[in-house]
């Protein structure tokens, strides 16, 4: 590994401007190197501190970020993490999320450049999310919590500044979503009646993972009345069945994020996660007749002709292709709300565990502290 000071001295690595915070903000806005909000200036000293928990080579890319296919080296990502307001302890999770998104099934190129309003939803599981303080309780998808805000924002800044997801040039989203500022949650494992997502996917309980989903913003499921599993799931299915969703046509993996109270009611009815997925697979359907005549003729009859060429108008249109495609987590605080998160169409979720450079699972973020 070349030394940090050598890297910083190489041509084009650094730019100079007035060190007044407002001047830095103006400079970055003029350059287009931000997300529109004020940032912490990524000075060499701050970037170096950000790398305190990075056990990778600082100049070796962990991913290439399209559409520019910019090299996401730790040093570049660290500059974005500084700008976002990350603590150094957050940094390994920012890198991990970018690595996961670079896996082919996620389709980072498509999700970056599409007109669809998708953005990476980051779901963290395992002990490190708790150790560094990623919120899994009240307002989990909202504001206020530094780790949720800064980790998701750092990822987004890297997508813009390294990958060139610049609106109208590399990010063609028609309207986008406010979730493009940050969309980062932890699963509320302590409040869940079910096994957490990473355990369901085969990782050890004490592994720490990120799951990335090319997500729309969350759609609320308000249900203060149902007191049975079927009641909660009926309301969930009703929220999931929307004609304008990519998930009605493609093989994406939408997510139901149950609030703990809804989850307890569903589990109290004797339903496992697998049962929930199967129930929703069978019932979260729309009759084809709910779509426009043009949609029926052009999309269903022609493009999806293997399923719908001669199907009756009341043929069910499913919101996911098979039961296991639905991602189910439990997150949030008290209250009778859950969330449904539709996705981009041509994408799959990716889950990656946090490992040390030697391949061992990281049990505490302190294992990664340098020197």
């Amino acid at each position, binding site marked *: 590994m070349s030394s940090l000071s050598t890297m910083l001295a190489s041509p084009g690595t650094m730019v100079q401007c007035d060190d007044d915070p407002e001047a830095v903000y103006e400079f970055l806005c003029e350059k287009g190197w931000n997300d529109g909000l004020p940032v912490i200036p990524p000075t060499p000293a701050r970037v170096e501190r950000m790398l305190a928990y990075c056990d990778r080579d600082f100049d070796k890319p962990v991913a290439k970020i399209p*559409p520019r296919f910019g090299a996401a080296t730790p040093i570049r990502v660290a500059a974005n993490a500084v700008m976002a307001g990350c603590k150094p302890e957050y940094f390994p999770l920012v890198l991990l999320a970018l690595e996961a998104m670079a896996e082919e099934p996620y389709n980072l190129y498509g999700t970056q*450049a599409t007109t669809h309003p998708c953005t990476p939803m980051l779901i963290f599981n395992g002990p490190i999310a708790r150790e560094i303080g990623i919120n899994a309780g009240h307002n989990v998808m909202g504001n206020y919590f530094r780790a949720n805000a800064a980790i998701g924002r750092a990822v987004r800044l890297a997508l813009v500044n390294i990958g060139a997801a610049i609106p*109208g040039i590399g990010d063609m989203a028609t309207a986008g979503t406010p979730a493009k500022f940050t969309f980062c949650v932890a699963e509320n494992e302590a409040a869940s009646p079910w096994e957490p997502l990473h355990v369901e996917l085969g990782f050890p309980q004490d592994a720490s993972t990120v799951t990335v989903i090319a997500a729309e913003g969350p759609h609320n499921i308000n249900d203060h009345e149902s007191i049975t599993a079927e009641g909660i799931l009926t309301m969930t299915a009703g929220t999931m069945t929307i004609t304008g969703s990519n998930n009605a046509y493609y093989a994406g993996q939408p997510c139901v994020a149950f609030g703990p109270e809804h989850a307890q009611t569903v589990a109290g009815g004797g339903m496992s996660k697998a049962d929930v997925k199967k129930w929703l697979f069978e019932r979260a359907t729309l009759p084809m007749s709910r779509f426009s005549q043009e949609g029926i003729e052009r999309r269903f009859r022609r493009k999806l002709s293997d399923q719908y060429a001669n199907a009756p108008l009341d043929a069910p249109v499913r919101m996911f292709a098979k039961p296991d495609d639905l991602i189910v987590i439990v997150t949030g605080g008290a209250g009778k709300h859950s969330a449904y998160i539709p996705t981009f169409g041509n994408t799959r979720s990716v889950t990656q565990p946090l490992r040390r450079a030697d391949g061992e699972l990281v049990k505490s973020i302190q294992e990664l502290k340098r020197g």
Partner: protein
Amino acid sequence: MAQLTKRGLIAAVVCSDSFMKLGTAQAKVFGVPDLPLLKIQHPLGGLNMDKVRERAAVALPQLLKVVKEKQS
């Protein structure tokens, strides 16, 4: 199209005007900055066949020009 161009074939991309910046940038990223972009009016999706034919009529002369230039 970038791969076809690199293999020496004549290639071009039909691109609606709203996507010209993306198309131009991607041609550079993929190492074929001179890849011809055949500019048509946006949108291309959600059109009836008459509108699709109108766009084809705009793209076709551009394509023929590219082919003639590449062959000469």
